[in-house]
């Protein structure tokens, strides 16, 4: 394989992993618990902001860089130091992942209060506004991530690897591992009595309460966990592209996460992973098409949006429950029933044979 193709594939894999984490956490919130989180980009950007705030300051403190954090020389220095000090860099990377996760969880917990009071559309609109306000705030407040300019010079944790391809592949493998762990963990949680309670909250909150479920507790746990995951995805994204730029975190991210969810199937994790794959292929694929290939009356970057919207319409019209519709949970209780039914059928068959003799 040519090195260009490997780079393309590994970039795609990294984006795929980030999308998977985002859409799976949204599926946990909306598909299983019924919380319409239209502020997905807020929790995602949170991870990036934490990274953009934490990494430069820690590096400046550790290595005593004198230049102001936002300056171009400082950002070059950070990259150089990243290459020279792999161990410290890895530590900083792991710490930012953990810190993003913790701060995501804390903010998720705080925002679980309005989500308990507000219902459906109102919550969706409020979260949408929170996300947008946060972006405007961060871009106008220079002390966080240098305002409109954004902050650069976040060294990739594998920047010290000399071979460019190995560097790329290492990072995408790491992201994919985190995405896989997320999938595995969410599948585990959902196919358990816990997942059963979440679904009951989604279907009828009051009835669930009257069956002894502490809806408040479950909702805040889900929001904490899902926000923490989104923030981790944001941290991975920030380290991948190497800078944090507030205007990057517009509503489109939220819409992408929802599109992946609706495309794959609400309430079906496997479907959501497939949805993410479709999205990332279209997204990355279109970026690779040089504009002279197609003669379009508009800029080629608009083509993406058009394709996504058409896709959304087609899905809603012809497969409203997604490519893989929701399925009953795979709990041990189901297995008990399956064996019982199978055995009773066998018993009936044997009886028929005996009576005919």
């Amino acid at each position, binding site marked *: 394989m040519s090195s260009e193709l490997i780079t393309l594939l590994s970039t795609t894999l990294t984006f795929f992993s980030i999308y998977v984490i985002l859409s799976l956490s949204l599926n946990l919130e909306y598909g299983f618990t019924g919380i319409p989180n239209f502020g997905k980009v807020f929790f995602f950007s949170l991870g990036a902001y934490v990274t953009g705030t934490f990494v430069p300051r820690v590096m400046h403190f550790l290595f005593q860089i004198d230049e102001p954090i936002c300056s171009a020389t400082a950002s070059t220095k950070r990259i150089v130091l990243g290459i020279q000090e792999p161990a410290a860099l890895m530590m900083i990377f792991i710490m930012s992942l953990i810190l993003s996760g913790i701060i995501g969880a804390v903010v998720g917990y705080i925002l679980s209060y309005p989500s308990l009071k507000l219902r459906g559309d109102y919550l969706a609109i409020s979260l949408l506004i929170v996300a947008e306000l946060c972006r405007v705030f961060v871009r106008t407040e220079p002390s966080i991530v240098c305002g409109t300019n954004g902050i650069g010079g976040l060294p990739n944790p594998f920047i010290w690897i000399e071979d460019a391809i190995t560097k790329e592949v290492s990072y995408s493998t790491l992201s994919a591992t985190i995405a896989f762990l997320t999938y595995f963990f969410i599948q585990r949680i959902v196919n358990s009595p*816990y997942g*059963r309670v979440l*679904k009951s909250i989604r279907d009828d909150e009051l009835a669930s309460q009257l069956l002894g479920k*502490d809806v408040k507790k479950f909702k805040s746990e889900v929001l904490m966990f899902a926000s923490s995951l989104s923030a981790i995805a944001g941290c991975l994204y920030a380290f991948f592209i190497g800078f944090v730029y507030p205007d990057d975190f517009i509503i489109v991210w939220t819409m992408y996460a929802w599109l992946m969810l609706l495309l794959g199937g609400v309430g079906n994790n496997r479907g959501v992973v497939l949805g993410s794959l479709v999205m990332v292929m279209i997204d990355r694929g279109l970026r690779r098409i040089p504009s002279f290939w197609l003669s379009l009356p508009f800029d080629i970057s608009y083509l993406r949006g058009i394709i996504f919207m058409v896709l959304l319409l087609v899905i809603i019209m012809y497969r409203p429950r997604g490519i893989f519709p929701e399925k009953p949970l795979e709990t*041990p*209780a189901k297995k008990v*029933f399956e064996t019982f039914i199978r055995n009773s059928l066998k018993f009936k068959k044997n009886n028929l044979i005996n009576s005919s003799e």
Partner: protein
Amino acid sequence: MSESLLYLQEVTKSFGGLKAVNKVSLKIPEKSIIGLIGPNGSGKTTLFNLISGVLYPDSGQIFFRGLRIDRMPPHERFKLGLCYAFQIPRIFRGMTVLENTMVSLKKQLGEQFLIAPFRRKWINQEVKNAERVLSVLEDAQLVNLYDKLSSELSGGQIKLLQLVRTITSEPKLFLLDEPGAGVAPSLAKEIFRKISRLRDEEDLTFFIIEHRLDLLFDIVDKVYVMNRGEIIAEGRPEEIIENSKVKEAYLGG
């Protein structure tokens, strides 16, 4: 008060200027079947909502098993053994019959976020629970439908499922809002026979709203009659039928 399972003292709830429940006091002794009747809009369902925790009373006190519960959230009242079946069944429509029944079981280890991912820790309990649910569903003739979405069931089956799923949770007191409404006569009879059997065999207590007096009066020990938010009469079924106030407000003629 000590021998009564549920005890209401001057419970009041108003919506705007309307006093939906006005200073209602009543006692439900253990292992009894008590009926609640009255014209439409007399506050029967509101009273049930107050007892179960869907609504909180404006004033008055509610005691259940000796504990004051009128400010307790509904999920804690359920844990004490208070069970509510709505008039229009509120089942979980996106879940199967099995999931609907399993979710109502109490004290499930796997319902804790940190334990749920570790199957080994809760699988034994889950299997035991499933076996219990199996016998209950077999009894209600729903076992072959276990993997069906509950929204695909017929009206009568949905009503049955709502009753059945609460039985597995070892309740002490059942609040049933019109268990016989919208159900074929034969199934309604079956449901009432079952209620009476459950009281005798499992020592459960029932508080039932019902308009089909023929079915209700066969099994109840005592009946309360509500009109405009107030209890206007109480007594044994044969006394209630003869009561002039009840005739005027509810029975007609």
